[in-house]
C-alpha cells in the first residue's frame, strides 16, 4: 500500500513538479511577509509580470520549435519607442497597428533567416539583439520618447486601465496565454511546432513545411513582443531606449523554468506561465523581505536551479542524475 501511494505521489510530482515548487515558494514567502499574498501585491506582481509573460509565451513557441530568441528584449524596446513616437504623430488608433506591422516585419526577417535560410538561431537573434538596438537608437536619436499629453489619451488603458476590477495587462496576459496555449496544444499548427522541434528531419519527411513552421513561430514571438511593448508604452506613457534590455535572458529563464527543453520538442504554455509567475514572485518576495539586491541574485540562482532540478528529478524518479 505504502509503495503504491508513494508511486502515485511520484507520478503526480513528475507531472506537476514545477507547480509544487511554485506552491512551496509562495508559502515560504507568505510566511516571511503577510503582505506578500495581499490582493494588491498579487495584482501588482502579475501586472508587472504580464510584460515578461506575454513575451515568454511567444518565445515558448520558438523554443519548442528548436530555436532560440535572444532578440525579444531589444525588439520590445523598439516597439515601445515606435508606438510612443507614432502616438503623437498619427494618433494612437493608427500608431498601434503601425507598430505591430513594424515589429512583425522584424520577426518575419528573423523567421526568414532562421526558417528559410536555416541560419543558427542563437547567432541570428544575438545579431538582431544588437542590430535592433541600433535601429531603435537611430529611430529615436537616442532620446527618451514621451507622450506629450499624458492625461488626455485613451492609450493608457492597456497599461493602466482595469476591467471588472482586474488590471488590463493581467487580462491581456491571460488572453494571450489562453489563446496561444490552445493554438499550441490543440491545433495542427501546434502539433507541427512540436514535431519540427522534436525532429526536424522526420517532420520534413512527414510533409511538414519546416521552414514555414519556424517562420510562423518567430512571427508569433514578435507579435507577442509587440503586445508587450504596447503594454509597456501604455504603462509609463514614455520610455527609454533600453527599456527591454536584458529581458531576453529573463524570458528564457522563465521558459526554461517552465520545463521547455532548449533542444526543442517539449514545453507548454501553461508551464511557461508558471515559470513567469515564479520569477515574478521571487523577485517581489525578496524585495519585500528587504534583502539587498545582490542577495536576491544569489537566492534567484539557487531557486532556479532547485526548481528545475526538482522538476526533472521528479520526471526521472531519482534525485541524482544518472550521468556516469
Amino acid at each position, binding site marked *: 500500500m505504502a509503495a503504491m501511494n508513494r508511486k502515485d505521489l511520484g507520478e503526480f510530482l513528475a507531472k506537476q513538479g514545477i507547480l509544487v515548487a511554485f506552491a512551496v515558494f509562495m508559502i515560504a514567502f507568505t510566511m516571511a511577509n503577510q503582505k506578500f499574498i495581499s490582493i494588491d501585491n498579487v495584482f501588482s506582481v502579475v501586472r508587472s509580470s504580464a510584460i515578461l509573460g506575454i513575451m515568454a509565451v511567444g518565445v515558448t513557441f520558438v523554443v519548442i520549435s528548436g530555436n532560440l530568441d535572444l532578440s525579444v528584449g531589444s525588439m520590445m524596446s523598439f516597439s515601445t519607442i515606435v508606438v510612443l513616437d507614432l502616438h503623437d504623430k498619427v494618433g494612437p488608433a493608427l500608431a498601434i497597428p503601425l507598430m505591430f506591422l513594424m515589429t512583425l516585419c522584424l520577426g518575419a526577417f528573423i523567421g526568414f533567416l532562421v526558417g528559410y535560410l536555416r541560419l543558427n538561431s542563437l*547567432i541570428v537573434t544575438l*545579431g*538582431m539583439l544588437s542590430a535592433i538596438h*541600433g535601429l531603435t*537608437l537611430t529611430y529615436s536619436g537616442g532620446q527618451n520618447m514621451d507622450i506629450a499629453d499624458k492625461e488626455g489619451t485613451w492609450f493608457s488603458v492597456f497599461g493602466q486601465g482595469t476591467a471588472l476590477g482586474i488590471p488590463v495587462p493581467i487580462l491581456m496576459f491571460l488572453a494571450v496565454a489562453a489563446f496561444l496555449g490552445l493554438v499550441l496544444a490543440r491545433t495542427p499548427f501546434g502539433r507541427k511546432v512540436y514535431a519540427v522541434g522534436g525532429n*526536424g528531419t522526420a517532420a520534413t519527411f512527414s510533409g511538414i513545411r519546416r521552414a514555414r513552421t519556424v517562420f510562423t513561430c518567430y512571427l508569433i514571438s514578435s507579435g507577442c513582443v509587440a503586445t508587450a511593448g504596447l503594454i509597456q508604452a501604455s504603462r509609463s506613457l514614455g520610455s527609454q531606449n533600453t527599456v527591454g534590455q536584458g529581458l531576453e535572458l529573463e524570458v528564457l529563464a522563465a521558459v526554461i523554468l517552465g520545463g521547455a527543453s532548449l533542444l526543442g520538442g517539449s514545453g507548454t504554455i501553461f508551464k511557461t506561465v508558471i515559470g513567469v509567475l515564479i520569477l515574478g514572485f521571487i523577485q517581489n518576495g525578496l524585495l519585500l523581505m528587504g534583502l539587498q539586491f*545582490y542577495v536576491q541574485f544569489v537566492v*534567484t540562482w539557487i531557486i532556479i536551479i532547485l526548481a528545475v532540478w526538482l522538476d526533472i528529478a521528479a520526471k526521472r524518479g531519482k534525485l541524482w*542524475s544518472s550521468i556516469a
Partner: protein
Amino acid sequence: MQKSTVSKALKSGAIWGFILLELIFFSIAGEHLSLSDTAFMDGENMLLLLKQSAPIGIIAMGMTIVMVNGNIDLSVGATFAIAAIVLLDSMTWPIFAGLGDGVIPVAWLLALTVGTLLGALNGLIVWKTGVDAFIVTLGSMLGYRGIVFMFNGENPTSHLNWTLVDFAEAEFLGFATATWFLLGVTLVMWFVMARTVHGRNAYAIGDNREAAVNAGIRVGPHMMINFAIIGFLAALSAVVFYSEAGSVNPNDGQLYELWVITAVVLGGTKITGGAGNVIGTFGGVIAIQLLRKGLGHIGADTSTVNLAVGLILIAVLFLDKQLNLKGKEELKV
C-alpha cells in the same frame, strides 16, 4: 587526421575569408573616413589588435571545449569579475603584507584557484543534478554576480601595483604580455583538444552522448573538468587584464559570455556540440575585435556600430552557410 587539423581548420568556416574582407574594407574605408594618419593595417595596430583580443580570446578557448562537449557556460563574465576581485583584493590582505611584491604570484594563484573552483562548481551541478548546463550557468551568471557585489557592495575593488602593471605592459619580441598569454592558451587548448584523449573524448561526448556513455566514457567528471578549465581560463583572462587595469567594477565582464559565444560560433563550433576547434575560435575572436576596432577607426557612431555588428554577424553566418552548401544534389530537409 592529426596532421591535417590545422589545414582543415583553416579551410573550414568562412571566418578567415571574412577577416580578410574586414581588413580590406577597413583599410580602404579608413583612407577616406578616418582621421588617423596611420593606416589601419599598420603593424603596430595589428599588434595592439592581438593584445586587445586577449580578454575575450582567452575565455573563448575554454568556451570552445565546453561547447564542443555539448554544454555552454553563461557565467564566465561573472567568474571573470570574481577572479579579478580576488586578485586585486588579496594583494591588500594583511597576512600577505610581509611579502612585498612577492604577493603577486600568490594573488595570481588565489584568483586562478577561485576561478577553477567556480567553474568546477558549475560542472558538479551539471553532473550531479542533470540540469542542463544552459540553465545551471544562466543561474550562476546571476548568483556569481551577486557574490561579486557582496565583496565590496557597489564600489570598485582596486589595487594599483605598478610592478604588476609594468609586467603586464611589458613587451617581449614585440608581443605584449596579454598577447603571449592568448597565444599560449590557444596553443595549449589546441593541443588538449586535438591531441589528447581528454580532448577527443570531449568531441565524442558532444557528438553523441549516448554513444560515449555506451563506450564507458565517464561523462560527468569529464564535463566537470571542462567546466573547471573554462573557470580557470576566465580567471586567467581576468588575471592578465586586471594586472594591468588594477581596478574592477562589479559590473565588469557583463555580456562577455555573449561575445565569447559569438566568437566561438563564428569560428565554426557547432552549438549542439561535437564539432569545432580553437583555431577557428581564434579566427572568431580576431574577427570580432577587428570589427570593433575597424568601426571605431572609420568613425561609426554607436547606433551604426550596433546595427553593423549585428548584421555582420548574420552575414558571416550566411556566408558560412553558402560556402558549405553541398550543391543541388543535397537532400532538402
